[in-house]
Each structure stands twice: as C-alpha cells, then as structure tokens.
C-alpha cells in the first residue's frame, strides 16, 4: 500500500486530486487500485449524515417548501457555496437569464451526491454529434462507443438500477446489463404511462443509483421520498462510499482544504497545488499527476484564480475557453390536478420520465426535452393550496388529501447549447473570507431554448387534456437544475477547447479536468453518470501514463 508523504503539512503523492466528490473519489479509487499513492483535498468539511437529517427536520417550513437543499449542510467558512434562505450572494448572476443559473451544490467530502436524486442517465449516441447531426452546438472528440464501456463501469461502481427491458432503455445501446433491474414502478408511474404512452410521450424508468434490495453495504431504498436534501438511510449512492474505500486503502483525504494556487514548471507541467487549511495556513501538494474535479463552477473558478506568470489568463486557458460555455438544463414545472387519484410521492423522488421528445429532427431548430414525473410528495404544496381556500377542520384535511392524491408535478429539462458568452469570470469587487475572488456568471438563453420551451408547453397542454386537468399551470421562469457543464469544455482543437477526450488539459501534460465541465453537449439528462464515466476514462489515461513514466 503506497501512501502519500506528509512533511510539515505539505503533501507528496503520485496523484493529487482536488475535490472529493463523485468524480474525484472514483478516480482516487481506480488509482489506489493501481497501486498509486493518492492525496485528495476537499474545500469543505466531512458531513455527518445524522446531523444533516436532524438539521433537515429542524428546517422552517418556508425553507422546505422552497426546496432549500443547501441550508442544512454545514459549510467550511472559508469555502462558501450558494445559499438562498437567505441568499449569501456568493455567485453574482447577471445577464437576461442570470437567475436561471442559481445553482445548488455542496462543497464537502462527498460533494453534491449528498443531495441528488441519483438519476443515472446516459447521453444518446447522437448527443455526441450535435454539430454533425443537427448543425448546432459542438461535436465531442469522442463517440458514444468510446464512452460506453465507462458508462457500464460507472453504473457498476455506483450500483445502478435500470430497466433490463430493452424497450424501456434510453438509450438501448449497451454492452452490459444494469447491475440491477429497474426500481419497480408504483401505481402513479404505471397509470400515467398507460394514459400518455399511446400519444408518443414514451415513459421510461429513470436509471438510478439505489436499489430495492441491499447492495454492497447499502440498505434497500424504503421510499423515504427524501433523496433531496438527504437520504436518511443511505440507500442512495454517495461519493463518500468511494472516499471511505480509498481511505481504507491508504489514500489521504484532507477536508476543509481550499485550493487556490497552481504552480507550473518545465513544459508548463503542473508542479504543485497550494491550499489553505482551516487555520488559514497555506500548504502545498506535489505529485506526478494532478486532477481538478471540484465541479462545473468551482473547477473553472479555481483555474482562473490560479493564473500565474506562465499562464496569465488562468491555468489550462490558452484557448480562453475556461469558464465559457456554461450550461445547465433549463428547467420549468407543469402542475395540475388530474381527474383521478394518481398518488405521486411514494418511493424515491424520481422514478419515471417521458423521453418521447428527447431526440428528433427538430433538434436542428429547438431544444429537446425530458419530462420527469416528479415523485416528491405533494403534501406541502397541497397544504398551502388548501389553506388558501380558507378551509378548516375536516374539510381542510380532506382537501389536502385530495390534492396530494390527484396532484401532478412534471419537471421539464431543456438542452442549452454551448455558448462562449455564457461565462464565469472572477469578481473584481467581491472576495470570500480568504480574500479570494468570488465567481460571477453571465447567462443568456437564446431562441433554441425559448422555442424548445414553447414546443414543450404544447406537449404539456396536450398531456393536461389527457387527464382533464384542472388548475393547469406552467412556470414561465426557467429554473436551474444543478447540472453544471461546459466550463472546461472538451474538444480536439486546443485553440477552442480546454481538454482532450480523456479530459486532459491541452496546456498541461499532467493535469486532468474531468467532470461536467468537460461535456461539450448537455443532452437533456442529468449529468452525473456521464461525469462518472469521464472520470473513469481519465483514470485509465492517468494510470497508463503513470505506468509509462
């Protein structure tokens, strides 16, 4: 077992990884398995699940009703993440659609897998060829076939339940089956699919990193319906699983360690990364290979912040693409009361999804969509609505029950295209507690999204008629979905991209930037599985290079 060497608080390891989320932890796991010594730094604290569960139970109803998934997580005072109840304005959002980029993410060991729905989608093969197929966006320098084996491995690492039935897979091009069959549909999913599927909406099970039987030390999901903000029983995959696995095998994991400076040397290779500990003392990590896997915001943030003499515009930024092409699935919701009880809100928070318009020739003109049947219990909105009716006593109880049973909430995701103008920059005025520049993000969604929104609204109105919907409503403001992509974009040309097909920085031979930031197209599906697959692909690349040297 090869372990990092710690001298006076400085660390030397074969591989230095910044960010102990799903991407960093999986890479660490692979490289520890290769016999490399690995040091992993995370800017945030270690999380105590029981504490967060209790924090959630203590949250005021206003925060819960507003889906505050951030406020219950402890933060390192030196590593803020966005807060909204009340807002901490850590990120300044500007541009016509700035408020549509108000992201949730956790800076802590385990990262944002502490609060995710565990959806584990693959991109479609055509999603890798948006430019060639539809004349919009960018092509990836790698194909679906290149990534497919890594998708399989990522699913196996995380313990994903997905449909064995080919007809229910999206996409169905797979070389290996899911580790476990789909999480069975409840009444709501089954009934909804029966009504809408004859009209081409194509309901499929959401592949998800949880199981309905015990798996690899995790208990079976028992349907607490609380995946976000916290799975109270740990049935859902969390990157701390990989963190623990690597620590048990000799990796060094340092929490509350805020990376802020990157040194480069001969041939522009990275020589060290510097961080502040919780006492604000600075240390450095030296190694042979470096991985920055913070997330789609914090990775470009760090690269820009770490600009040095040799890289005055930021690390890995000779293309000027670091922090550009910021993407996230533009979201909106459609709610209504069906003419029959559907009983959403049992089981995990997301179980099925309409993918009928996930692809099609229309993508040359406007955005595809996916429509999740939101399975979060309607108890809070139903109560708020029933109270507004002025009901009391039994009538109030009955109305809440009726609205919970008949209520439908559809969460729609649209696909933004990579646009260099959607950009993260360093604030010239705002500094965090360490004196480091806070991120600013400019965001503007063009006609591709707006036309996609209109098309989806037509589809939703049609779905509403199928259920004789009342109180039918579609939100007009696009919301963030916390799927951070694009900021360190992948491409074959170093002039207009930051990393290559293995997520290795074009500018630095020994620096990898895997994760959502590398993704040149966002598709309409949650990004985590693609991020994990890219992580494993990077890990293979790092391993082969370290073996050679």
């Amino acid at each position: 077992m090869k372990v990092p060497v710690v001298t006076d608080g400085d660390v030397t390891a074969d591989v230095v990884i910044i960010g102990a989320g799903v991407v960093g932890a999986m890479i660490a796991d692979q490289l520890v398995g290769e016999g490399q010594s690995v040091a992993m730094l995370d800017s945030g604290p270690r999380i105590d699940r029981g504490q967060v569960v209790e924090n959630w139970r203590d949250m005021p109803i206003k925060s819960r009703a507003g889906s505050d998934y951030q406020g219950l997580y402890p933060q390192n005072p030196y590593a803020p993440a966005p807060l909204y109840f009340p807002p901490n304005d850590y990120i300044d959002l500007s541009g016509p659609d700035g408020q549509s980029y108000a992201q949730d993410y956790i800076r802590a060991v385990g990262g944002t897998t502490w609060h995710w729905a565990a959806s584990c989608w693959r991109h479609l093969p055509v999603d890798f060829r948006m430019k060639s197929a539809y004349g919009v966006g960018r092509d990836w320098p790698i194909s679906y076939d290149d990534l497919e084996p890594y998708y399989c491995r990522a699913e196996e690492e995380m313990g994903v339940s997905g449909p064995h039935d080919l007809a229910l897979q999206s996409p169905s091009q797979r070389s290996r089956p899911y580790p476990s069959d789909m999480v069975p549909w409840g009444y709501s999913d089954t009934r909804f699919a029966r009504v809408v599927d004859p009209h081409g909406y194509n309901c499929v099970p959401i592949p998800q990193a949880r199981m309905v039987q015990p798996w690899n030390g995790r208990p079976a999901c028992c349907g607490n319906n609380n995946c976000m903000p916290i799975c109270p029983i740990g049935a859902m995959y969390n990157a701390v699983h990989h963190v623990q696995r690597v620590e048990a095998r000799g990796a060094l994991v340092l929490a509350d360690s805020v990376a802020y400076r990157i040194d480069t040397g001969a041939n522009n290779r990275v020589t060290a990364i510097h961080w502040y500990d919780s006492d604000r003392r600075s240390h450095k990590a030296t190694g042979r290979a470096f991985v920055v896997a913070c997330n789609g915001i914090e990775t470009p943030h760090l690269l820009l912040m770490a600009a040095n003499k040799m890289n005055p515009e930021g690390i890995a930024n000779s293309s000027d693409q670091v922090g550009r092409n910021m993407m996230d699935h533009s979201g909106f919701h459609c709610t209504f009361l069906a003419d029959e009880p559907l009983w959403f809100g049992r089981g995990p928070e997301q179980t099925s999804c309409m993918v009928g318009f996930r692809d099609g020739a229309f993508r040359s003109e406007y955005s595809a969509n996916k429509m999740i049947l939101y399975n979060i219990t309607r108890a809070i909105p139903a109560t708020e609505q029933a109270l507004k009716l002025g009901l009391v006593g039994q009538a109030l109880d009955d109305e809440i029950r009726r609205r919970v049973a008949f209520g439908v909430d559809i969460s729609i995701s649209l696909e933004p295209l990579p646009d260099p103008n959607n950009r993260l920059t360093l604030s010239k005025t705002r500094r965090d507690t360490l004196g480091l520049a806070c991120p600013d993000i400019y965001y503007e969604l063009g006609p591709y999204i707006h036309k996609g929104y209109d098309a989806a609204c037509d589809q939703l109105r049609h779905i509403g008629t199928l259920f004789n919907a009342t109180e039918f409503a579609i939100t007009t403001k696009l919301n963030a979905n916390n799927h951070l992509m694009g900021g360190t974009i992948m491409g074959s040309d170093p002039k207009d991209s930051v990393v290559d097909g293995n997520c290795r920085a074009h500018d630095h031979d020994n620096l990898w930037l895997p994760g959502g930031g590398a993704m040149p197209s966002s598709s309409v599906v949650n990004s985590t599985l693609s991020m994990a697959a890219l992580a494993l692909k990077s890990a293979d690349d790092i391993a082969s290079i370290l073996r050679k040297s």
Partner: protein
Amino acid sequence: MAGPRASSGFRRPRFWRRLVPAAALWLLGFSVGVHAAPAYPEETVRRGQYLAVAGDCTGCHTNPRGGAPFAGGYGIVSPLGTIWSSNITPSRAAGIGAYTESQFTQALREGIRADGTHLYPAMPYPAYTGLSDEDVHALFAYFQQAVAPVDTRPPKTRLPFPFNLRVSMVVWNALFLRNTRFEADPSKSAAWNRGAYVVTALEHCGDCHTPRNLLMAEKSGRAFAGGPVKPWYAPNITPDPISGIGGWSHQEIVQYLKTGAVSPKSQAAGGMAEAVSDSLQYLHPEDVDAIVTYLETIPPIRADTDTRAAFDFGGPADFETSVRGVDTGQGSLAGGAALYSGNCASCHQPAGTGTKDQTFPVLFHNTVTGASQADNLISTILHGVDRDADGHRVFMPRFGEESYIQPLTDEQISTISNYVLQTFGNPNVLVSTKDVATARKGH
C-alpha cells in the same frame, strides 16, 4: 441453499469467536489420501444433503465472498492470526476425495484427520459424535458423490506456539469428548427424541448456547444457559420464563427458527442469522417442531440477577420536543435522543415502534434491548444485520468504521446504546465506550 451474500464483515462469529487468546483451539483442514468414491443410491445422497444443511457445514466451509461450495478458504481473522477453513469437496488433491468412510467418520466424530492429525473443536465433532451411523454414511455419500470437487487448497493456518500444538487435543478429548452415539430415551416421544438428536448432534446448538469453561469445553450442568460468542451473545434458550425462552409460545419459537424473526420479541443477527439463513430455514417442519418440543423440556436455568424476561422491557418514546428547534450548531449531534433521531429513527421510528409491517422492527419488548448483556445491541449497531430467510433478505447496515451510511464513533455508539437501553430496553445495563471498542475489534 442460501445464495451468496454480499460481504457483511463479521461472518461466522460462532463458537470459535470465543477462542480469544486464553484458550485457542482452532479448526484446520483435512488432508489428502488415495481412494475412489463408490456410487451411492440417490436417496442416500439426498438425505446426506439434507443433513449437511442441518449440520450447517457450509457455514464454515464455504467462503461467503463468492467461494465454491465447501471449498473452504474462508479466512477468519482472529487475535491469533488468520484461520482458514478446509476444503471438504471430494477433490483428491485438495479436499476429502481420498478419504475412506471410516476416515470420514473419525474426522466427524473424533476430530481426527485421515493423516492422524487432531482437529481443533471449532469443528463441532464433540456434537457430531452423536450422529448415527446411518447419518454419517449419508453425509459421506453426499460429499463424495454430489459435491463438485474443487482442487484449490485453502491457505494453511499457522498459529503461533503453543496453539499450534495439536497433540494437546489428545488430552482435551480425553477430558471432554464423549465418543458415544445419541441414544433415544424410550420414555419420551418420538418427536422429543428427534428434537434432542437434532439439537445436540446435528445442529450443534450447544456450541454457541452453552457456556464454556476455561478450556473451552461446554460447562456441565449449564446446558443452553447462554454465553458470549464474541462480539455477540448467544442467549439462554432453556425454558426458564425469565432468563430463557419459557415466555415464548411453541409457535413463536418455530417461527423464529424458520424466519429469524418474531415480532416484537426478537430478530436474529450475527451467528444466529447465519444459522437461520444457511440451515434452520431449510429443516423439515417436523424437525423444527421436534427441536422446539425438546427445548421446552430441558432443565430451565435462571440467572440470579434476572428479574424480568428480556422481551418485557421498555415502551414507546416521545423525545421530539426535546430535540426539535434546538440549535445543535454545525458540529456533532449531542445526546442520545438527538443521535438516535438522526441515525436510527428513520427506520425504527421516533417512538421506537418500528414500521407498521415490522420490516424495521420495534425496539421495545425486544430481547436485544431487554437482555442482561448489551453485546447484541452494540454488535447490531456496529456490524448490522444480514439475514436471508423466508424469501426475504433482511439487512440493516453497519455503523462501524466501514459503514457507507455513517461511521459512528465508540462514544456515539455507547451514547445511542444507553439511550436505547434506558428508553426501550433494560435500564440496568450500561454501555461504556470501552465495550464498544472491544466489540469493534470483534472480541
């Protein structure tokens, strides 16, 4: 047989888990000889298979981490070093394929391998010695004819001096091995006699449930009075209504043996979960009934300090108002109620009632929390529950250091344990952080 299960840390924490450095008497493999397996009638082989299940041979001789059936190689980490179970497949090179029936019989009943080496009584030959000639023959037929030979030799067990001196077993056997077959008591019913045979010989229940003396032999006069099987505790199963299972109905005990759970009384974990998963659930109903018939008549044994049955303690809790709205800051949860609420209540419910269908069991009126020893409570929290019976996999995650849910500290576990004992269980039992540290190490 039960399918392979995911690794659950502490497997096989049976009798040999008692073998702490004070007296270590360990299992070692059979060795090699030369002989051909004759053909046996299908009926005999089937009977042998049933007996092998009832004797739970697989418990030690199949590596739960994906090992081939009966190929041994299950590594047991002990304070003395790793003990490897032996290959008992009919491989001539690595297993018992070259054994004659009389050599097999001698190993089973007297703990002597074909090459004359003595086994340690982790192999339950002091119980198997009671097996009838007919049953030993059927077992031999099964192992020689129906088990697939595996030519892999398990690693050799190498214990330090003096535990490596197998010759000492000659003395031990002279003192403690009663090399006699089970004899039916004509004054008792056929069911009682069958039960006595299954309990004392085949299922070797006393291996865990009878306390041991300093030389690790079962204490005479204390049969089935319960004893530590570190880090667990095998409870008193005599019919005493306070210390034993006299307060259980016949049907409850039957159900427990078949499924590992009787709500609210008890749920099998540790070695008992394995015994149910690997062996007891597959017994013929008449054999289970016979076991209970026999157990109901053995001499009841009462511990002087016991005043109430273990399932007769506690009641529902109501702590919500004491923990809600209290600023616990960003640090760790403080106090038993808060720790219980954050880590346990999602499944066992705030009141400790478990869920309606008892998928997650009630914590009061439960022998784990009402026992006079907290071993099973501590070990359940540390090592979890993994039971595969009655068509269901019952799984509680561990909260020890390998936990994917939340690794809890010794102090947190002792705080939770004491809260649970005070609220739901036996308030006279106190758990120290040292108790947890000891159980964490497995002894």
